[in-house]
């Protein structure tokens, strides 16, 4: 066991038989991982990937079908006629209990305000907690983190009751403001700022005469980009996917989120074996509702990989 492995330097070039380098750039060979381990782990990943992809594949296949084929053909494969386009058209023209397009737009508004607002607020707070020793810092932080222990459902009915006093039920701000408040994001930002924004750099900037806002915007923010992107995504996603909160504080079909609208449609359709065309329309609508977030993931993916900028401080 005690054979001294070479420290991770440039790995000696074993031209073809090399195992992939580890996630942290350490050649796997040095961990003592055998080819067999790699294969077994890869197979396990593959199985879980299948489990993950099954419903997504199903929703895509199903939204290309007519309702008769949906009820009678094999669910995981296509069948003729291929009616994806007419189903999609139906999704947008259907006026069953409200307009899908309206819900899509509402959700986009709530999610972008929630995402941007939540990111800015938590980046500032996280940076403040990580890099300033103001009085009461720990108490305040614990207070905010303590709220993580309190279930969101415990806020929802109370929020409804408080909103009732201020006429905020079934209003846009009433729906999106709660999306901007994310204690988890504050936690992530604090951890990340603590690890990636060196005190020395801040002190140096102060000595050079930079104000605190400038230091935050010009020095801290660029160093926190991966965390910013991650938190932005988390906030957009939690706003986009949220159901319970809007469900409680909003009952206006005009202000529905996608999830609210889809729930209404889903309930309308789910009589087993329903032959209403509406069944496939709802499935197609569900598929459309996933696409914006998937696109965002793909676009932003390269920014949120790993602790990218941790290295750039020393370099």
């Amino acid at each position, binding site marked *: 066991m005690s054979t001294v492995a070479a420290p991770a330097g440039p790995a000696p070039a074993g031209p073809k038989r090399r195992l992939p380098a580890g996630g942290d750039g350490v050649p796997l060979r040095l961990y*003592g991982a055998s080819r067999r381990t790699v294969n077994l782990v890869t197979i396990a*990943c593959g199985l879980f990937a299948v489990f993950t992809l099954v419903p997504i594949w199903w929703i895509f296949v199903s939204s290309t079908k007519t309702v008769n084929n949906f009820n009678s053909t094999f669910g995981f494969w296509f069948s003729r006629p291929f009616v994806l386009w007419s189903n999609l058209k139906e999704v947008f023209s259907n006026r069953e209990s409200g307009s899908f397009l309206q819900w899509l737009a509402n959700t986009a508004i709530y999610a972008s305000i929630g995402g941007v607002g939540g990111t800015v607020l938590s980046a500032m*707070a996280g940076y403040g907690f990580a890099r300033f020793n103001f009085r009461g810092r720990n108490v305040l932080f614990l207070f905010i983190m303590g709220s993580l222990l309190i279930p969101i459902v415990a806020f929802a009915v109370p929020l409804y009751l408080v909103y009732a006093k201020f006429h905020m039920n079934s209003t846009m701000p009433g729906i999106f403001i709660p999306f901007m408040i994310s204690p988890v994001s504050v936690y992530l930002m604090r*951890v990340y700022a603590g690890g990636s924004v060196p005190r020395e750099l801040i002190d140096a900037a102060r000595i050079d005469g930079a104000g605190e806002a400038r230091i935050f915007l010009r020095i801290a923010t660029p160093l926190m980009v991966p965390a910013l992107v991650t938190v932005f995504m988390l906030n957009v996603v939690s706003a986009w996917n949220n159901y319970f909160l809007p469900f409680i504080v909003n009952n206006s079909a005009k202000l529905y989120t996608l999830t609210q609208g889809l729930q209404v449609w*889903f309930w309308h359709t789910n009589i087993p074996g329903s032959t209403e065309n509406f069944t496939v329309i709802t499935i197609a609508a569900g598929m459309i509702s996933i696409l914006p977030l998937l696109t965002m993931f793909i676009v932003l993916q390269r920014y949120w990989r790993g602790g990218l900028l941790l290295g750039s401080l020393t370099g």
Partner: protein
Amino acid sequence: MPRWAGPPDALPSVAGGGDGQRQEAAPLAVAARRATGRRSFSTRRDRRGIVFVLPFFVLFFMFLVVPLAYSVYTSFFTTRMIGGTVFTGLSNYTQALGDGAFWTGMGRTMLFAAIQVPIMIVIATFFATMFDLGVARFGGGFRAVFFLPFAVPGVVATAMWGSMLQTRVGVFVRIFEDLGLPDPNFFGPGHLLGVIVVIAIWEWTGFTVILLYTALKSVPRDVVESAIVDGARLGRIVTRIKLPIIRPAIILVVIINVIGALQLFTEPYLLSPMAPNISANYTPTVYMYNVAFSAQYYDLAAAIAVVLAFIIILISAGFLLTQRRKGAIV
């Protein structure tokens, strides 16, 4: 908005010069800092930290703390159709706690959490460490795939699984049929909770993998490198170095998931028209919703919310304490 920017007024007087003097003043300031000690240099600046925290805190206070306080307040009152709102002390609480309907749901969600959370944490920790060490081929691709369900709203996830599993026409039911097996009746009393467990695992595992993976990535590389130099193998590096270091993150993830699990609402609520076994008190949250909006007993619902929050806090805090006794957390 307060002015954070502007002249470097908080610098020690040595450095206080015009812009032109900045370059020359800097070494002096460093010298001054060394002489006076770091603390005195930074205390005045530090107070400004509160300004960064304030915007978040104001909204946090208004939209989370106030409603919660209000719900505690209102839970001590009872509103009747005749007689208005009167202070009734703990009567809402005795009603909520004495109600078998609440405890049935509570027991069910606890069972749900006790099954779903451990399974998911084990799966997620396994994949996160494997991705971190780069053991799996195509790690980046798998990570992206696992993360996909995070883009799917719980409503859509439930609708998809619900449709796939539904009696007679669901794709899985038809596969059973083709194999000559009886309809497993996924929404029957025996399988229903299992179905919800599967949906929840499907929804949240990938996200948990990413959380743990991010934590693992922050483990300093030299720690691992020196372990390798000392001849530690893969399994040891994971169990003796990586996982202990990220233990606080694992604990946080467990707590977040337990809290989430105990609030179970969307999945059973959406499935309820398909699954007649989902009663009005299937989970405490479903029950609270029905008490508030079907029966319109808002005060009682507020009391249920408080009790639910209290139980969840108790469980989380209890878990935290046991972890602390093992000497592992912050």
